[in-house]
Protein backbone atom coordinates (compact mmCIF):
# COMPACT_ATOMS: atom_id res chain seq x y z
CA UNK A 1 0.00 0.00 0.00
CA UNK A 2 1.45 3.39 -0.96
CA UNK A 3 2.55 5.33 2.04
CA UNK A 4 0.46 8.41 1.27
CA UNK A 5 -2.78 6.44 1.00
CA UNK A 6 -3.05 5.73 4.69
CA UNK A 7 -3.02 9.44 5.48
CA UNK A 8 -6.38 9.88 3.87
CA UNK A 9 -5.70 12.96 1.81
CA UNK A 10 -3.01 11.87 -0.65
CA UNK A 11 -0.66 14.84 -0.72
CA UNK A 12 2.82 13.34 -0.33
CA UNK A 13 5.45 15.91 0.51
CA UNK A 14 8.00 17.13 -1.99
CA UNK A 15 11.40 15.58 -1.75
CA UNK A 16 12.86 17.59 -4.61
CA UNK A 17 11.91 20.94 -6.04
CA UNK A 18 13.97 22.40 -8.90
CA UNK A 19 13.05 25.89 -10.10
CA UNK A 20 14.68 27.24 -13.25
CA UNK A 21 17.87 25.31 -12.63
CA UNK A 22 20.63 26.18 -15.12
CA UNK A 23 24.20 25.00 -15.22
CA UNK A 24 26.85 26.43 -17.48
CA UNK A 25 30.41 25.30 -17.96
CA UNK A 26 33.22 27.15 -19.54
CA UNK A 27 35.21 24.72 -21.64
CA UNK A 28 38.15 26.12 -23.58
CA UNK A 29 36.67 29.62 -23.61
CA UNK A 30 33.27 28.40 -24.81
CA UNK A 31 30.23 28.47 -22.61
CA UNK A 32 28.44 25.14 -22.57
CA UNK A 33 24.86 25.21 -21.41
CA UNK A 34 24.47 21.82 -19.73
CA UNK A 35 21.09 22.52 -18.13
CA UNK A 36 18.65 25.24 -19.07
CA UNK A 37 15.93 26.38 -16.72
CA UNK A 38 14.91 22.95 -15.57
CA UNK A 39 11.82 22.77 -13.39
CA UNK A 40 11.13 19.50 -11.64
CA UNK A 41 9.21 18.37 -8.60
CA UNK A 42 9.63 14.86 -7.20
CA UNK A 43 7.37 13.72 -4.40
CA UNK A 44 8.06 11.31 -1.65
CA UNK A 45 7.62 7.71 -2.74
CA UNK A 46 8.16 8.36 -6.44
CA UNK A 47 10.32 6.16 -8.67
CA UNK A 48 11.57 8.40 -11.41
CA UNK A 49 13.87 7.66 -14.31
CA UNK A 50 15.89 10.35 -16.03
CA UNK A 51 16.61 9.43 -19.65
CA UNK A 52 18.45 11.11 -22.41
CA UNK A 53 21.26 10.65 -24.89
CA UNK A 54 24.80 11.37 -23.83
CA UNK A 55 25.44 15.09 -23.67
CA UNK A 56 21.80 15.73 -22.83
CA UNK A 57 22.69 17.00 -19.37
CA UNK A 58 21.46 14.02 -17.38
CA UNK A 59 24.80 13.57 -15.62
CA UNK A 60 24.85 17.23 -14.72
CA UNK A 61 21.30 16.97 -13.43
CA UNK A 62 22.24 13.94 -11.38
CA UNK A 63 25.27 15.73 -9.89
CA UNK A 64 23.10 18.66 -8.91
CA UNK A 65 20.40 16.41 -7.47
CA UNK A 66 23.12 14.59 -5.50
CA UNK A 67 24.61 17.87 -4.24
CA UNK A 68 27.94 17.03 -5.84
CA UNK A 69 27.60 20.15 -7.95
CA UNK A 70 25.88 23.53 -7.66
CA UNK A 71 23.59 25.10 -10.26
CA UNK A 72 24.71 28.32 -11.90
CA UNK A 73 21.25 29.72 -11.27
CA UNK A 74 17.88 28.58 -10.01
CA UNK A 75 16.59 27.19 -6.77
CA UNK A 76 16.97 23.65 -5.48
CA UNK A 77 15.12 22.51 -2.39
CA UNK A 78 15.99 19.01 -1.19
CA UNK A 79 13.85 17.56 1.59
CA UNK A 80 12.99 21.02 2.81
CA UNK A 81 16.51 22.44 2.62
CA UNK A 82 17.43 25.10 0.08
CA UNK A 83 20.77 23.67 -0.98
CA UNK A 84 21.50 26.04 -3.84
CA UNK A 85 23.89 28.26 -1.95
CA UNK A 86 25.43 25.95 0.62
CA UNK A 87 29.20 25.75 0.93
CA UNK A 88 31.29 22.61 0.40
CA UNK A 89 31.09 21.37 3.96
CA UNK A 90 27.36 22.00 4.23
CA UNK A 91 26.85 20.10 0.97
CA UNK A 92 28.94 17.25 2.38
CA UNK A 93 26.54 17.03 5.31
CA UNK A 94 23.52 17.08 2.95
CA UNK A 95 25.03 14.30 0.81
CA UNK A 96 25.74 12.34 3.92
CA UNK A 97 22.28 12.73 5.45
CA UNK A 98 19.84 13.05 2.57
CA UNK A 99 21.31 11.29 -0.46
CA UNK A 100 22.17 7.65 -1.02
CA UNK A 101 24.27 7.07 -4.13
CA UNK A 102 24.29 3.90 -6.21
CA UNK A 103 26.90 4.11 -8.97
CA UNK A 104 27.45 2.21 -12.19
CA UNK A 105 31.02 1.45 -11.02
CA UNK A 106 29.76 0.40 -7.54
CA UNK A 107 32.46 2.65 -6.02
CA UNK A 108 33.14 0.57 -2.95
CA UNK A 109 36.43 1.09 -1.13
CA UNK A 110 38.41 -1.94 -2.30
CA UNK A 111 40.60 -2.31 0.79
CA UNK A 112 37.79 -2.15 3.33
CA UNK A 113 35.50 -5.01 4.27
CA UNK A 114 31.96 -4.78 3.03
CA UNK A 115 30.85 -4.16 6.61
CA UNK A 116 33.21 -1.18 6.82
CA UNK A 117 31.98 0.04 3.45
CA UNK A 118 28.39 0.08 4.64
CA UNK A 119 29.46 1.76 7.88
CA UNK A 120 31.33 4.54 6.08
CA UNK A 121 28.46 7.05 5.64
CA UNK A 122 27.51 6.51 9.30
CA UNK A 123 31.12 7.06 10.30
CA UNK A 124 31.11 10.47 8.64
CA UNK A 125 27.74 11.10 10.30
CA UNK A 126 29.30 10.45 13.70
CA UNK A 127 27.12 7.45 14.56
CA UNK A 128 28.64 5.57 17.53
CA UNK A 129 30.61 2.46 16.64
CA UNK A 130 28.30 -0.17 18.08
CA UNK A 131 25.13 1.34 16.65
CA UNK A 132 26.78 1.75 13.28
CA UNK A 133 27.96 -1.82 13.15
CA UNK A 134 24.53 -3.11 14.20
CA UNK A 135 22.75 -1.12 11.51
CA UNK A 136 25.26 -2.12 8.82
CA UNK A 137 24.82 -5.80 9.73
CA UNK A 138 21.05 -5.39 9.56
CA UNK A 139 21.23 -3.74 6.12
CA UNK A 140 23.55 -6.43 4.79
CA UNK A 141 21.25 -9.09 6.17
CA UNK A 142 18.33 -7.59 4.28
CA UNK A 143 20.17 -7.96 0.99
CA UNK A 144 21.33 -11.46 1.86
CA UNK A 145 25.05 -10.80 2.39
CA UNK A 146 25.18 -11.33 6.14
CA UNK A 147 27.70 -14.16 5.64
CA UNK A 148 30.17 -11.98 3.79
CA UNK A 149 30.74 -9.23 6.32
CA UNK A 150 34.52 -9.59 6.44
CA UNK A 151 34.98 -10.03 2.67
CA UNK A 152 36.54 -7.37 0.50
CA UNK A 153 34.52 -6.07 -2.46
CA UNK A 154 36.95 -7.75 -4.89
CA UNK A 155 35.88 -11.13 -3.54
CA UNK A 156 32.27 -10.50 -4.55
CA UNK A 157 30.44 -10.72 -7.86
CA UNK A 158 29.22 -7.56 -9.59
CA UNK A 159 25.65 -8.12 -8.44
CA UNK A 160 26.77 -8.65 -4.87
CA UNK A 161 28.86 -5.51 -4.99
CA UNK A 162 25.93 -3.48 -6.22
CA UNK A 163 23.81 -4.90 -3.40
CA UNK A 164 26.47 -3.76 -0.94
CA UNK A 165 26.38 -0.34 -2.57
CA UNK A 166 22.59 -0.24 -2.10
CA UNK A 167 22.98 -1.18 1.56
CA UNK A 168 25.53 1.61 1.90
CA UNK A 169 23.15 4.06 0.20
CA UNK A 170 20.51 3.24 2.79
CA UNK A 171 22.85 3.59 5.77
CA UNK A 172 21.79 7.06 6.91
CA UNK A 173 18.15 6.57 5.85
CA UNK A 174 18.34 9.26 3.14
CA UNK A 175 15.39 11.12 1.65
CA UNK A 176 16.58 10.19 -1.83
CA UNK A 177 18.23 7.21 -3.49
CA UNK A 178 20.15 8.37 -6.53
CA UNK A 179 21.10 5.54 -8.86
CA UNK A 180 23.32 6.34 -11.84
CA UNK A 181 23.13 3.52 -14.42
CA UNK A 182 23.05 0.97 -11.58
CA UNK A 183 22.79 -1.96 -14.00
CA UNK A 184 25.28 -0.63 -16.53
CA UNK A 185 28.06 -2.98 -15.47
CA UNK A 186 25.88 -6.04 -14.86
CA UNK A 187 24.53 -8.82 -17.03
CA UNK A 188 20.80 -8.85 -17.75
CA UNK A 189 19.79 -11.26 -14.99
CA UNK A 190 21.84 -9.57 -12.31
CA UNK A 191 20.65 -6.18 -13.53
CA UNK A 192 17.06 -7.34 -13.24
CA UNK A 193 17.74 -8.49 -9.70
CA UNK A 194 19.13 -5.06 -8.75
CA UNK A 195 16.09 -3.39 -10.30
CA UNK A 196 13.82 -5.68 -8.29
CA UNK A 197 15.59 -4.55 -5.12
CA UNK A 198 15.10 -0.90 -6.09
CA UNK A 199 11.44 -1.54 -6.90
CA UNK A 200 11.04 -3.25 -3.57
CA UNK A 201 12.63 -0.28 -1.78
CA UNK A 202 10.26 2.02 -3.67
CA UNK A 203 7.27 -0.05 -2.62
CA UNK A 204 8.39 0.42 0.96
CA UNK A 205 8.27 4.17 0.48
CA UNK A 206 11.76 5.14 -0.72
CA UNK A 207 12.05 7.93 -3.25
CA UNK A 208 14.27 6.75 -6.08
CA UNK A 209 15.78 8.64 -8.98
CA UNK A 210 17.35 6.47 -11.63
CA UNK A 211 19.54 7.82 -14.40
CA UNK A 212 19.74 5.59 -17.46
CA UNK A 213 19.88 5.53 -21.20
CA UNK A 214 18.26 2.08 -21.35
CA UNK A 215 14.47 2.15 -21.97
CA UNK A 216 14.08 -1.33 -20.44
CA UNK A 217 15.60 -0.11 -17.21
CA UNK A 218 13.55 3.06 -17.30
CA UNK A 219 10.39 1.00 -17.74
CA UNK A 220 10.67 -0.10 -14.10
CA UNK A 221 10.14 3.48 -13.01
CA UNK A 222 6.70 4.90 -12.48
CA UNK A 223 7.65 8.17 -14.09
CA UNK A 224 10.14 8.93 -16.84
CA UNK A 225 11.53 12.31 -17.83
CA UNK A 226 13.55 12.82 -20.96
CA UNK A 227 16.31 15.36 -21.36
CA UNK A 228 17.58 16.76 -24.62
CA UNK A 229 20.12 19.56 -24.77
CA UNK A 230 19.68 20.45 -21.13
CA UNK A 231 15.89 20.72 -21.23
CA UNK A 232 13.14 18.39 -20.11
CA UNK A 233 11.29 17.45 -23.27
CA UNK A 234 8.98 14.82 -21.85
CA UNK A 235 7.55 13.86 -18.47
CA UNK A 236 5.53 10.66 -18.63
CA UNK A 237 3.60 8.50 -16.24
CA UNK A 238 3.95 10.72 -13.21
CA UNK A 239 1.45 10.37 -10.45
CA UNK A 240 -1.13 13.01 -11.08
CA UNK A 241 -0.13 15.43 -8.42
Amino acid at each position, binding site marked *: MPEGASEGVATPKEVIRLEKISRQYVVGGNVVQALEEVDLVIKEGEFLAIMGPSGSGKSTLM*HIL*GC*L*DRPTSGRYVLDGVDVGRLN*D*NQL*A*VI*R*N*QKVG*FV*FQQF*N*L*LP*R*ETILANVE*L*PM*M*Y*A*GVPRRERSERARQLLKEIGLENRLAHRPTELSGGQRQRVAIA*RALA*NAPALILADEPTGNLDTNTGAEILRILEDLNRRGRTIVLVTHDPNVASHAGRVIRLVDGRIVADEGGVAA
Partner: protein
Amino acid sequence: MSIRETAKAALRGLGLYPLRTFLSVLGIVIGVASVIGLVAIGAGVQKSVTNQISQLGSDVLLVSPAMQRGLFGRSVAQTTVDTSMAKDLVEHNPLIRQAVATLQTQGTMTVDNSTLDVTVVGVTPDYADIFSYPVETGRFLRASDQDLGVDVVVLGAEVASTLFPGENPLGRKVQLSAGNYPTRSFIVVGVMSSLGRTFAGNFDGQVYLPASTFFRWTGQRRVSTFILRARSSDVAVDAADQVDFYLTRRVGANKFRVESQQAILQTIGSVVGTLTLSLGAIAGIALVVGGIGVMNVMLVSVKERTREIGIRKALGAKNRNILSQFLLEAIFLSLTGGLLGLFGGWGVAALVSRWGHWPTVLPIQAIFLAIGFSSAVGLFFGIYPAMQAARLDPIASLSYE
Protein backbone atom coordinates in the same frame (compact mmCIF):
# COMPACT_ATOMS: atom_id res chain seq x y z
CA MET B 1 34.59 11.03 12.20
CA SER B 2 36.76 10.51 15.23
CA ILE B 3 40.55 10.72 15.39
CA ARG B 4 40.66 6.98 16.00
CA GLU B 5 38.82 6.23 12.76
CA THR B 6 40.84 8.77 10.81
CA ALA B 7 43.99 7.14 12.20
CA LYS B 8 42.76 3.72 11.15
CA ALA B 9 42.08 4.90 7.62
CA ALA B 10 45.52 6.54 7.52
CA LEU B 11 47.28 3.40 8.73
CA ARG B 12 45.40 1.35 6.13
CA GLY B 13 46.82 3.68 3.50
CA LEU B 14 50.37 3.12 4.77
CA GLY B 15 50.15 -0.65 4.65
CA LEU B 16 49.23 -0.49 0.98
CA TYR B 17 52.77 -0.55 -0.41
CA PRO B 18 55.17 -1.56 2.38
CA LEU B 19 58.31 -1.39 0.26
CA ARG B 20 57.46 2.00 -1.15
CA THR B 21 56.58 3.21 2.33
CA PHE B 22 59.92 2.00 3.65
CA LEU B 23 61.93 3.52 0.81
CA SER B 24 60.19 6.85 1.12
CA VAL B 25 61.07 7.13 4.81
CA LEU B 26 64.62 5.87 4.38
CA GLY B 27 65.91 9.44 4.46
CA ILE B 28 64.27 9.98 7.83
CA VAL B 29 65.46 6.59 9.09
CA ILE B 30 69.06 7.35 8.19
CA GLY B 31 68.89 10.90 9.49
CA VAL B 32 67.40 9.98 12.83
CA ALA B 33 69.59 6.89 13.18
CA SER B 34 72.81 8.80 12.62
CA VAL B 35 71.81 11.56 15.00
CA ILE B 36 70.66 9.15 17.70
CA GLY B 37 73.71 6.95 17.21
CA LEU B 38 76.18 9.81 17.44
CA VAL B 39 74.40 11.49 20.33
CA ALA B 40 74.36 8.20 22.22
CA ILE B 41 78.01 7.51 21.51
CA GLY B 42 78.99 11.06 22.44
CA ALA B 43 76.99 10.87 25.65
CA GLY B 44 78.53 7.49 26.46
CA VAL B 45 82.07 8.71 25.95
CA GLN B 46 81.42 11.86 27.90
CA LYS B 47 79.89 9.90 30.73
CA SER B 48 82.75 7.44 30.84
CA VAL B 49 85.33 10.25 30.84
CA THR B 50 83.45 12.24 33.43
CA ASN B 51 83.20 9.15 35.60
CA GLN B 52 86.92 8.55 35.37
CA ILE B 53 87.70 12.14 36.14
CA SER B 54 85.30 12.47 39.00
CA GLN B 55 86.90 9.38 40.53
CA LEU B 56 90.07 11.38 40.91
CA GLY B 57 88.60 14.80 41.44
CA SER B 58 88.58 17.55 38.86
CA ASP B 59 91.12 19.59 40.87
CA VAL B 60 93.82 16.98 40.25
CA LEU B 61 96.77 17.70 37.93
CA LEU B 62 99.17 15.10 36.62
CA VAL B 63 102.74 16.12 35.84
CA SER B 64 104.90 13.56 34.11
CA PRO B 65 108.20 13.73 32.24
CA ALA B 66 107.64 14.17 28.52
CA MET B 67 108.67 11.05 26.65
CA GLN B 68 110.52 11.05 23.39
CA ARG B 69 111.35 8.20 21.11
CA GLY B 70 115.01 7.42 21.73
CA LEU B 71 117.51 4.84 20.60
CA PHE B 72 116.01 1.55 19.35
CA GLY B 73 112.50 3.00 19.56
CA ARG B 74 112.51 3.11 23.33
CA SER B 75 110.69 5.89 25.07
CA VAL B 76 113.08 7.98 27.00
CA ALA B 77 112.15 10.54 29.61
CA GLN B 78 113.39 14.01 28.69
CA THR B 79 114.52 14.76 32.19
CA THR B 80 114.79 13.25 35.59
CA VAL B 81 113.90 14.91 38.84
CA ASP B 82 113.71 13.45 42.29
CA THR B 83 110.95 13.34 44.83
CA SER B 84 112.12 16.46 46.61
CA MET B 85 110.61 18.52 43.83
CA ALA B 86 107.12 17.77 45.17
CA LYS B 87 107.75 20.20 48.02
CA ASP B 88 109.08 22.84 45.64
CA LEU B 89 106.01 22.54 43.44
CA VAL B 90 103.78 23.43 46.38
CA GLU B 91 106.03 26.21 47.63
CA HIS B 92 106.48 27.97 44.29
CA ASN B 93 102.99 27.59 42.92
CA PRO B 94 100.41 29.31 45.10
CA LEU B 95 97.54 27.67 43.23
CA ILE B 96 98.82 24.21 44.21
CA ARG B 97 97.68 22.90 47.53
CA GLN B 98 99.32 19.49 47.63
CA ALA B 99 101.85 17.49 45.64
CA VAL B 100 102.91 13.86 45.70
CA ALA B 101 105.72 12.28 43.75
CA THR B 102 105.35 8.72 42.56
CA LEU B 103 108.05 6.34 41.43
CA GLN B 104 106.93 3.54 39.24
CA THR B 105 108.11 0.27 37.79
CA GLN B 106 106.55 -2.87 36.39
CA GLY B 107 107.03 -5.96 38.52
CA THR B 108 105.78 -9.37 39.51
CA MET B 109 104.26 -10.27 42.85
CA THR B 110 104.47 -13.83 44.13
CA VAL B 111 102.48 -15.41 46.95
CA ASP B 112 103.11 -19.08 47.54
CA ASN B 113 102.86 -20.38 43.99
CA SER B 114 100.73 -17.74 42.38
CA THR B 115 102.23 -14.76 40.61
CA LEU B 116 100.75 -11.62 39.15
CA ASP B 117 102.11 -8.77 37.05
CA VAL B 118 101.64 -5.55 38.97
CA THR B 119 102.59 -1.91 38.74
CA VAL B 120 104.83 -1.12 41.69
CA VAL B 121 104.39 2.43 42.88
CA GLY B 122 106.59 4.15 45.41
CA VAL B 123 104.61 6.87 47.15
CA THR B 124 104.57 9.16 50.14
CA PRO B 125 101.78 8.69 52.71
CA ASP B 126 99.66 11.62 51.43
CA TYR B 127 99.13 9.78 48.15
CA ALA B 128 95.85 8.19 49.30
CA ASP B 129 94.71 11.50 50.66
CA ILE B 130 95.23 13.43 47.44
CA PHE B 131 92.76 11.24 45.54
CA SER B 132 90.51 10.56 48.51
CA TYR B 133 91.47 6.97 47.79
CA PRO B 134 89.92 4.94 50.63
CA VAL B 135 91.37 1.92 52.39
CA GLU B 136 89.34 -1.28 52.30
CA THR B 137 91.07 -3.17 55.10
CA GLY B 138 94.17 -2.56 57.16
CA ARG B 139 95.82 0.81 56.65
CA PHE B 140 97.64 2.90 54.06
CA LEU B 141 101.33 3.80 54.32
CA ARG B 142 102.29 5.99 57.25
CA ALA B 143 104.91 8.66 57.79
CA SER B 144 106.85 6.18 59.93
CA ASP B 145 106.93 3.68 57.05
CA GLN B 146 108.40 6.41 54.89
CA ASP B 147 110.89 7.59 57.50
CA LEU B 148 112.13 4.13 58.36
CA GLY B 149 111.87 2.73 54.86
CA VAL B 150 110.26 -0.49 56.11
CA ASP B 151 109.35 -3.34 53.77
CA VAL B 152 105.57 -3.04 53.83
CA VAL B 153 103.16 -3.03 50.91
CA VAL B 154 99.55 -1.94 50.34
CA LEU B 155 97.64 -3.80 47.62
CA GLY B 156 95.23 -2.49 45.02
CA ALA B 157 91.80 -4.13 45.13
CA GLU B 158 92.32 -6.28 42.06
CA VAL B 159 95.75 -7.48 43.19
CA ALA B 160 94.38 -8.51 46.57
CA SER B 161 91.39 -10.36 45.14
CA THR B 162 93.54 -12.17 42.57
CA LEU B 163 96.38 -13.27 44.83
CA PHE B 164 94.31 -13.83 47.96
CA PRO B 165 90.96 -15.07 46.75
CA GLY B 166 88.69 -15.40 49.78
CA GLU B 167 91.58 -14.89 52.17
CA ASN B 168 92.67 -12.07 54.42
CA PRO B 169 95.97 -10.76 52.99
CA LEU B 170 96.82 -8.64 56.05
CA GLY B 171 100.10 -9.68 57.65
CA ARG B 172 100.93 -12.04 54.77
CA LYS B 173 104.38 -12.11 53.23
CA VAL B 174 104.68 -11.45 49.48
CA GLN B 175 107.68 -11.48 47.10
CA LEU B 176 108.22 -8.65 44.65
CA SER B 177 110.58 -8.77 41.73
CA ALA B 178 111.07 -6.05 39.18
CA GLY B 179 113.58 -5.77 36.36
CA ASN B 180 117.13 -6.46 37.46
CA TYR B 181 116.43 -5.61 41.06
CA PRO B 182 116.78 -8.38 43.66
CA THR B 183 113.58 -10.11 44.68
CA ARG B 184 112.43 -8.73 48.00
CA SER B 185 109.89 -9.74 50.65
CA PHE B 186 107.18 -7.39 51.88
CA ILE B 187 104.48 -7.62 54.53
CA VAL B 188 100.96 -6.68 53.44
CA VAL B 189 99.59 -3.99 55.76
CA GLY B 190 96.53 -2.84 53.82
CA VAL B 191 94.20 -3.27 50.87
CA MET B 192 92.71 -0.31 49.01
CA SER B 193 89.11 -0.21 47.87
CA SER B 194 88.38 -0.39 44.18
CA LEU B 195 88.65 2.81 42.15
CA GLY B 196 88.04 1.29 38.75
CA ARG B 197 89.56 2.56 35.56
CA THR B 198 90.59 6.19 35.70
CA PHE B 199 92.41 8.66 33.55
CA ALA B 200 95.58 8.10 35.53
CA GLY B 201 95.53 4.37 34.99
CA ASN B 202 94.16 1.33 36.70
CA PHE B 203 94.71 1.89 40.42
CA ASP B 204 93.31 -1.49 41.34
CA GLY B 205 96.24 -3.28 39.65
CA GLN B 206 98.89 -1.36 41.57
CA VAL B 207 100.79 -2.09 44.77
CA TYR B 208 102.14 0.70 46.94
CA LEU B 209 105.49 0.89 48.74
CA PRO B 210 106.96 3.76 50.76
CA ALA B 211 108.97 5.94 48.34
CA SER B 212 112.05 5.52 50.55
CA THR B 213 111.77 1.74 50.44
CA PHE B 214 111.28 1.85 46.70
CA PHE B 215 114.45 3.91 46.34
CA ARG B 216 116.50 1.70 48.62
CA TRP B 217 115.36 -1.40 46.74
CA THR B 218 115.76 -0.14 43.17
CA GLY B 219 118.06 2.83 43.46
CA GLN B 220 115.65 4.62 41.17
CA ARG B 221 115.01 8.27 41.96
CA ARG B 222 113.38 9.26 38.70
CA VAL B 223 109.86 10.45 39.36
CA SER B 224 107.21 8.91 37.12
CA THR B 225 104.42 11.26 37.92
CA PHE B 226 103.80 14.13 40.24
CA ILE B 227 100.23 14.26 41.37
CA LEU B 228 99.17 17.77 42.30
CA ARG B 229 96.05 19.16 43.72
CA ALA B 230 94.90 22.68 42.92
CA ARG B 231 93.26 24.99 45.46
CA SER B 232 89.93 24.27 43.76
CA SER B 233 88.50 22.85 40.55
CA ASP B 234 87.87 26.38 39.30
CA VAL B 235 91.56 27.30 39.32
CA ALA B 236 92.77 23.92 38.09
CA VAL B 237 93.39 25.12 34.54
CA ASP B 238 95.25 28.22 35.75
CA ALA B 239 97.21 26.10 38.19
CA ALA B 240 98.29 23.87 35.31
CA ASP B 241 99.61 26.93 33.44
CA GLN B 242 101.39 28.09 36.55
CA VAL B 243 103.08 24.73 37.05
CA ASP B 244 104.00 24.54 33.38
CA PHE B 245 105.61 27.98 33.58
CA TYR B 246 107.45 27.07 36.77
CA LEU B 247 108.80 23.82 35.29
CA THR B 248 109.88 25.54 32.11
CA ARG B 249 111.90 28.02 34.11
CA ARG B 250 113.35 25.34 36.31
CA VAL B 251 114.15 22.48 33.93
CA GLY B 252 113.49 23.85 30.45
CA ALA B 253 110.65 23.92 27.98
CA ASN B 254 108.63 20.81 27.14
CA LYS B 255 110.40 18.55 29.60
CA PHE B 256 107.16 17.84 31.40
CA ARG B 257 103.62 17.27 30.42
CA VAL B 258 101.06 18.94 32.68
CA GLU B 259 97.55 17.57 32.47
CA SER B 260 94.65 19.03 34.31
CA GLN B 261 91.53 16.97 34.68
CA GLN B 262 89.57 20.16 34.38
CA ALA B 263 91.19 20.90 31.03
CA ILE B 264 90.36 17.40 29.84
CA LEU B 265 86.76 17.93 30.92
CA GLN B 266 86.65 21.23 29.06
CA THR B 267 88.12 19.69 25.93
CA ILE B 268 85.60 16.87 26.02
CA GLY B 269 82.84 19.38 26.62
CA SER B 270 83.82 21.50 23.65
CA VAL B 271 84.28 18.44 21.42
CA VAL B 272 80.83 17.23 22.37
CA GLY B 273 79.48 20.74 21.80
CA THR B 274 80.97 20.87 18.30
CA LEU B 275 79.68 17.38 17.66
CA THR B 276 76.19 18.39 18.73
CA LEU B 277 76.29 21.41 16.46
CA SER B 278 77.37 19.45 13.41
CA LEU B 279 74.79 16.81 14.33
CA GLY B 280 72.18 19.52 14.17
CA ALA B 281 73.27 20.31 10.62
CA ILE B 282 73.23 16.63 9.61
CA ALA B 283 69.85 16.18 11.22
CA GLY B 284 68.50 19.23 9.44
CA ILE B 285 69.67 18.08 6.03
CA ALA B 286 68.56 14.49 6.57
CA LEU B 287 65.14 15.54 7.77
CA VAL B 288 64.59 17.89 4.85
CA VAL B 289 65.63 15.13 2.44
CA GLY B 290 63.42 12.69 4.33
CA GLY B 291 60.57 15.17 4.34
CA ILE B 292 60.77 15.57 0.58
CA GLY B 293 60.59 11.78 0.31
CA VAL B 294 57.45 11.80 2.42
CA MET B 295 55.93 14.60 0.40
CA ASN B 296 56.69 12.82 -2.83
CA VAL B 297 55.14 9.54 -1.77
CA MET B 298 52.10 11.35 -0.36
CA LEU B 299 51.54 13.22 -3.63
CA VAL B 300 51.70 9.93 -5.49
CA SER B 301 49.37 8.38 -2.96
CA VAL B 302 46.82 11.19 -3.30
CA LYS B 303 46.92 10.85 -7.06
CA GLU B 304 46.47 7.08 -6.92
CA ARG B 305 43.63 7.31 -4.48
CA THR B 306 41.73 10.09 -6.22
CA ARG B 307 38.77 7.77 -6.68
CA GLU B 308 38.77 6.78 -3.03
CA ILE B 309 38.73 10.46 -2.13
CA GLY B 310 35.82 11.02 -4.53
CA ILE B 311 33.87 8.13 -2.98
CA ARG B 312 34.50 9.39 0.53
CA LYS B 313 33.37 12.87 -0.45
CA ALA B 314 30.23 11.59 -2.16
CA LEU B 315 29.38 9.70 1.02
CA GLY B 316 29.69 12.82 3.13
CA ALA B 317 33.37 13.31 4.00
CA LYS B 318 34.10 16.97 4.61
CA ASN B 319 37.27 18.54 3.28
CA ARG B 320 38.79 18.45 6.74
CA ASN B 321 38.05 14.71 7.09
CA ILE B 322 40.10 14.09 3.97
CA LEU B 323 42.76 16.59 5.05
CA SER B 324 43.24 14.96 8.44
CA GLN B 325 43.28 11.46 6.97
CA PHE B 326 46.14 12.26 4.62
CA LEU B 327 47.92 14.47 7.09
CA LEU B 328 47.86 11.73 9.71
CA GLU B 329 49.08 9.30 7.08
CA ALA B 330 52.07 11.55 6.38
CA ILE B 331 52.78 11.93 10.10
CA PHE B 332 52.55 8.18 10.68
CA LEU B 333 54.82 7.67 7.71
CA SER B 334 57.61 9.88 9.00
CA LEU B 335 57.03 8.79 12.58
CA THR B 336 57.58 5.21 11.44
CA GLY B 337 60.82 6.39 9.90
CA GLY B 338 61.73 8.20 13.11
CA LEU B 339 61.11 5.13 15.25
CA LEU B 340 63.04 2.85 12.90
CA GLY B 341 65.87 5.37 13.00
CA LEU B 342 65.67 5.57 16.78
CA PHE B 343 66.08 1.83 17.21
CA GLY B 344 68.67 1.62 14.45
CA GLY B 345 70.78 4.39 15.96
CA TRP B 346 70.41 2.89 19.40
CA GLY B 347 71.59 -0.47 18.12
CA VAL B 348 74.62 1.06 16.45
CA ALA B 349 75.49 3.01 19.59
CA ALA B 350 75.15 -0.13 21.72
CA LEU B 351 77.50 -2.04 19.43
CA VAL B 352 80.07 0.74 19.31
CA SER B 353 80.00 1.30 23.04
CA ARG B 354 80.41 -2.39 23.75
CA TRP B 355 83.46 -2.34 21.54
CA GLY B 356 84.76 0.83 23.19
CA HIS B 357 83.98 -0.24 26.77
CA TRP B 358 81.84 2.70 27.71
CA PRO B 359 78.26 2.76 28.82
CA THR B 360 75.46 3.08 26.27
CA VAL B 361 73.70 6.28 27.17
CA LEU B 362 70.64 7.34 25.21
CA PRO B 363 69.56 10.71 26.57
CA ILE B 364 65.78 10.82 26.99
CA GLN B 365 65.75 14.20 25.22
CA ALA B 366 67.19 12.52 22.14
CA ILE B 367 64.26 10.11 22.05
CA PHE B 368 61.71 12.89 22.34
CA LEU B 369 63.65 14.90 19.80
CA ALA B 370 63.60 12.03 17.31
CA ILE B 371 59.88 11.47 17.75
CA GLY B 372 59.05 15.15 17.82
CA PHE B 373 61.15 16.06 14.81
CA SER B 374 59.95 13.22 12.64
CA SER B 375 56.30 14.02 13.43
CA ALA B 376 56.97 17.67 12.70
CA VAL B 377 58.54 16.73 9.37
CA GLY B 378 55.46 14.63 8.54
CA LEU B 379 53.19 17.52 9.47
CA PHE B 380 55.18 20.08 7.50
CA PHE B 381 55.72 18.03 4.36
CA GLY B 382 52.33 16.32 4.57
CA ILE B 383 50.23 19.45 4.67
CA TYR B 384 50.57 20.24 0.97
CA PRO B 385 49.62 16.76 -0.33
CA ALA B 386 46.79 16.58 2.22
CA MET B 387 45.46 19.94 1.04
CA GLN B 388 45.61 18.70 -2.53
CA ALA B 389 43.54 15.71 -1.48
CA ALA B 390 41.02 17.80 0.44
CA ARG B 391 40.55 20.21 -2.45
CA LEU B 392 39.75 17.53 -5.03
CA ASP B 393 36.47 18.00 -6.82
CA PRO B 394 34.17 15.08 -5.99
CA ILE B 395 32.73 14.71 -9.50
CA ALA B 396 36.11 14.70 -11.23
CA SER B 397 37.51 12.33 -8.58
CA LEU B 398 34.64 9.87 -8.98
CA SER B 399 35.25 9.55 -12.70
CA TYR B 400 39.04 9.32 -12.28
CA GLU B 401 40.47 6.08 -13.56
